């Protein structure tokens, strides 16, 4: 990712030591940089490759700490859901995974986010290169005020992709299950589409640059249930080829689509002015929703608070 752009998709991640697969829930203090974070599930973690190995990530906005000591391994070709009450730092965390937090001048990220054997916050990493590989879909559909075609083609053009642009556009729209609806009006303005179509266009746009991770920050919160269902179906299809991390406020959605779920919560500092989010529990989705370890997780997923 840094100097040599010749090996963008290394398949040698298996060589990473996977020491933390069986030693309980909480990483013991003092082992910060030993890659000893608990994998969510011992059995699967040894088989699946992690796409992200996040260690002790803290994010500060100015003096205020927004998230505290987040550590998790995010597995390849899975859907990882981040759930939790408002203000618990889910969105802040997901934005660490493609360095979108860099766009906020006051934001500072500490800790490490290892992606394909490289720390995304290492000194030689270009955040622009990171974002080429790790796509993002936002809460509110944000198509560009251009034609459907140009919305898709923008990413491939700016990253300098070679090849027939018509094919790139068609392929991206097909992968986002949007081709049949749009093939006859590629030159029309994307603002004329429905909200659900716009969001699928944003997914197609993110797929057009051939990322291998898709980050989705509450992608369905502005959509009706039918559009939401279509996007969930799409996510299930996409995880064959991509790794997906999704922030959601909708617990049913997390339960329906995700393989792993991380439950975030928020705590107030002593002066009760600042809120800091952290991960309470991270595990296989079924376990989080049926048999969580932590009482707070149970209270949240059963609807007792949040």
């Amino acid at each position, binding site marked *: 990712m840094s100097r040599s752009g010749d090996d963008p998709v290394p398949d040698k991640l298996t060589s990473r030591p996977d020491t933390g697969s069986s030693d309980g829930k909480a990483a013991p203090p003092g082992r910060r940089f030993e890659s000893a974070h608990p994998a969510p599930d011992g059995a699967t973690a040894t088989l699946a490759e992690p796409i992200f190995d996040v260690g002790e990530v803290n994010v500060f906005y100015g003096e205020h700490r927004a998230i505290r000591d987040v550590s998790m391994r995010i597995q390849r070709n899975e859907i990882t859901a981040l759930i939790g009450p408002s203000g618990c730092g889910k969105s802040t965390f997901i934005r660490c995974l*493609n360095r*979108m937090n860099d*766009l906020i*001048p*006051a934001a500072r990220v500490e800790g490490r986010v290892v992606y394909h054997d490289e720390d995304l916050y290492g000194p030689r990493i270009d955040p*622009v*290169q990171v*974002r*080429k*590989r790790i*796509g*993002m879909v*936002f809460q*509110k559909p*944000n*198509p*560009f*005020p251009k034609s459907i075609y140009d919305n898709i083609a*923008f*990413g491939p053009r*700016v*990253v300098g992709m070679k090849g027939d642009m018509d094919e790139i556009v068609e392929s991206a729209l097909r992968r986002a299950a949007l081709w049949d609806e749009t093939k006859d009006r590629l030159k029309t303005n994307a*603002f004329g589409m429905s909200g659900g179509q716009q969001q699928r266009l*944003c997914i197609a*746009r*993110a797929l057009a*640059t051939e990322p291998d991770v898709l980050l989705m920050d509450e992608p369905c919160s502005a959509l009706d249930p039918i559009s939401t269902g279509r996007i969930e179906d799409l996510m299930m299809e996409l995880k064959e080829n991509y790794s997906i991390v999704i922030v959601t406020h909708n617990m049913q959605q997390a339960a329906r689509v995700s393989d792993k779920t991380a439950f975030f919560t928020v705590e107030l500092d002593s002066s009760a002015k600042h809120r800091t989010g952290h991960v309470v529990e991270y595990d296989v989705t079924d376990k989080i929703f049926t048999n969580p370890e932590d009482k707070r997780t149970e209270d949240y997923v059963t609807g007792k608070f949040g």
Partner: protein
Amino acid sequence: MTGAQIAAAARTRTSVLPRPSTGSRVADIVFRALMYFAIAIGFIGLGAILYDVARDGIPRLSWDFLTNFPSRIIPERSGIQSALIGTLYLMAIVAVMVVPLGVATAVYLEEYADRRKWFNRLIEVNIQNLAAVPSVVYGILGLAFIVRGPLSMGRVLLAGGITLSLLVLPVVIIVAREAIRAVPPSIREGSMALGATQWQTIWKQVLPGSIAGIATGVILALSRAIGETAPLLIIGAAVSPRFNPSGLFDSFTALPIQIFSWTTDADRDFVAAAAGAILVLMVLLVLMNSVAIFLRNRYEQKW
């Protein structure tokens, strides 16, 4: 129940929807009357000026009036060619100078400047203040630094153009900033998340999204520039020259200067010529403002 029955029923009992009190109705009427009065004053003033100028000026309007050079002796054959050409040249100079400078400054302030830094806040405050500085002060600046002083260009077209550019630059910066700010942050995020650099995001998303607003602002700034008289008087534009400027470093005049010199003439016929020149200037301004409105309505991005 018919309407009349309902009305009758309403009169016989206390309504749950009481009628407005007399006091509040009177206040409503008085306020409305005041607003009409305020609007009327503006319209009456404008109408009076238009009538006065049109009465004197319309008889003077002709092709010859546009193409003749001003005459000191025969007001009937006096024309505005040198003034009109001078004004068009000034417009071109101002546009060429102000668009890149103004847009670049606005992009810096909106997209790059860290507002926590004191010098960026200082720049912002300065631009706001400069926009409110009287134009005559810019004339003095032009005289001291451009016509004489460091640049010592003399009383030439380029000196006038630079002075007017300085005058309208703050306005262009402010309008361009507003247009750039109107592009939602989500567009920038969407672009950056696709792996675009900040420069690609600005060049391919932010500027295209704000171009209509910027163009509108530039045209309005230009129309302010060509109406300005004081700075040009101070830097010493020529009065009634019988030649067009041959280049950037030739002496020049402009419509407001020509109008000013004719209106101060004792001869009534020259005052009529001034009215004709005012009409030409006003038509020019209305045309430019119409283009600005057209651009805004046609190309402005709705988010």
